[in-house]
């Protein structure tokens, strides 16, 4: 283990925790949620110990302090995503809420009979069901980009599916089930040429590669803080200012108004128009710390580490003849989905847990993809900055135990 990795592991207190089996914990489920470094946990605790009050309109010191922290967090996210303006950053609960916001505020205006919305077969339910429901309600057509056997988008089909009647292209950046890194810039350009809006689900990508929304050219980008070393309950919707200004709010209530009388309500400016009610202030503050932590480590190190882990896992795990890798895209993130002979993923998950190894098993909220693959689910090991080669060795040992029990 490199000295850098040793230091990183020390930053995550939970990784040193004993598993009930008595074996050291091997956490291989960061695609579901990353663990939290001490700086993030302390930032959250510090916020509540020293800075909490409700933001905006408070004229007292604490309220101004909390407001300033919340504003600073927004600016950090802005720089992290390469957005042009801080008001293009809307704090939401997570990627799911961000997508629902756009489906509601923009989608309902555009979707109608004769138009179509394009998604892919590898979408997480969060970027599938809102569009499916919208289409069902409006008569709009839902078009689904198919996949190749390796789990890559069929770009020839995609080009045909995105046409002059496409109103929205909603696409996952990195597949949570397959690890596929999609060529989103190319598809965003195709959609823009046809006059469609574009939304990118960055839930998996934000912690694995640098994001520049302006360079990417998308209209919307969503992610969840909890996959980026921050707490659960905070997430981000990025949207181009000129579009967000035009579309109506998602939720109504406090903070999102300019004035209210008995007769009528005027909405607030961006970003507050989309942030009804008291937001997760502490979560935003901790998210800023998560971003800071990731940037301190640096993308070069993170991406090289990811590449090495995926390559080592692929090499070691493929030594089992009965193991089949699900998702073999050329451009792939450090997500390793697999089947193991006739062993049901849940049996694998339970037996690996007895060895102290946490992996995810099931459909990974991508049931249309599982249906296409003709499997009820897969086992998935996903890696983050704190994972080691030794942990992959432990997974191999764990699978050997599984194999022995099932043969």
């Amino acid at each position, binding site marked *: 283990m490199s000295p850098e990795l040793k230091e990183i592991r020390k930053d995550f207190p939970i990784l040193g925790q004993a598993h009930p089996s008595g074996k050291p914990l091997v956490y291989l489920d960061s695609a579901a949620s990353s663990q939290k470094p001490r700086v993030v946990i302390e930032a959250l605790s510090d916020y509540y110990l020293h800075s909490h009050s409700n933001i905006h309109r408070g004229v007292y010191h604490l309220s101004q302090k909390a407001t300033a922290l919340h504003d600073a967090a927004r600016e950090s996210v802005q720089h992290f995503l390469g957005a042009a303006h801080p008001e293009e950053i809307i704090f939401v609960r997570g990627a799911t809420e961000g997508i629902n916001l756009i489906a509601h505020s923009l989608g309902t205006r555009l979707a109608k009979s004769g138009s179509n919305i394009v998604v892919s077969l590898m979408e997480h339910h969060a970027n599938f069901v809102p569009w499916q429901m919208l289409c069902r309600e409006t008569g709009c057509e839902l078009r689904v980009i198919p996949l190749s056997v390796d789990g890559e988008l069929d770009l020839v089909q995609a080009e045909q599916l995105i046409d002059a009647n496409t109103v929205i292209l909603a696409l996952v950046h990195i597949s949570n089930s397959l690890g596929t890194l999609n060529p989103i810039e190319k598809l965003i350009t195709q959609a823009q040429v046809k006059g469609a809006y574009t939304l990118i689900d960055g839930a998996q990508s934000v912690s694995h590669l640098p994001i520049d929304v302006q360079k990417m050219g998308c209209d919307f980008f969503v992610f969840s803080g909890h996959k980026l070393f921050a707490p659960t309950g905070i997430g981000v919707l990025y949207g181009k200012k000129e579009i967000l200004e035009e579309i109506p709010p998602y939720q109504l209530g406090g903070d999102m108004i300019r004035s209210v009388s008995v007769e009528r309500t005027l909405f607030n400016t961006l970003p507050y128009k989309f942030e009804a009610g008291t937001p997760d202030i502490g979560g935003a503050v901790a998210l800023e710390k998560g971003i800071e932590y990731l940037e301190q480590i640096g993308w070069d190190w993170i991406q090289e580490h990811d590449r090495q882990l995926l390559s080592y896992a692929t090499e070691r795990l493929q030594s089992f003849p009965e193991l089949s890798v699900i998702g073999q895209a050329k451009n792939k993130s450090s997500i390793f989905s697999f089947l193991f002979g006739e062993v*049901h*993923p*849940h*049996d694998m998950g*339970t*037996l690996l847990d*007895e060895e102290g190894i946490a992996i995810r*098993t*099931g*459909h990974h909220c991508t049931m249309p993809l*599982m249906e296409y693959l003709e499997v*009820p*689910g897969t086992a998935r090991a996903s890696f983050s900055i704190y994972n080691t080669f030794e942990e992959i060795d432990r997974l191999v040992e764990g699978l050997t*135990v599984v194999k022995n*029990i*099932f043969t």
Partner: protein
Amino acid sequence: MDTSKKGLYHPVIMGHNKHPFHFEKKEEASVIIEAYNQLCGDQFKLYLDLDGDKILQAHFHGYGCAVSKASTSLLVQQLEKRRIEDVKILIDKYLNMLKGEGEELVEQSPWDELSVFKAAQNYPARMKCATLCWEEIQRFIDTK
């Protein structure tokens, strides 16, 4: 791992997983009951041939983990030649056993084998695997 006490992968379960009882499709059966676990996608069809209130034959087919497959295999084995009212009592006893409630069951057939599923108590996320088809048959009886 101790497979004889706490572990879920007892030889009885592994045996029934590998060689399930009456594991075949019987689409001509007088009653077909479907069981589906939306959490994991496990899906079974239970085929029953009834004569009045007696189950003459029972078969099953489908896809599931070792625990759900074995628990269904043992269930199917127990259904045959039983009257519906007896099946109801059996299922109640089984489900109560898994909840840790009800009478302490004597160590004789079928409870010598069925009691291995008590280990599911140590695996809350897997409890449904042990009860899936049992609850479906219970629902069928209750709505009959």
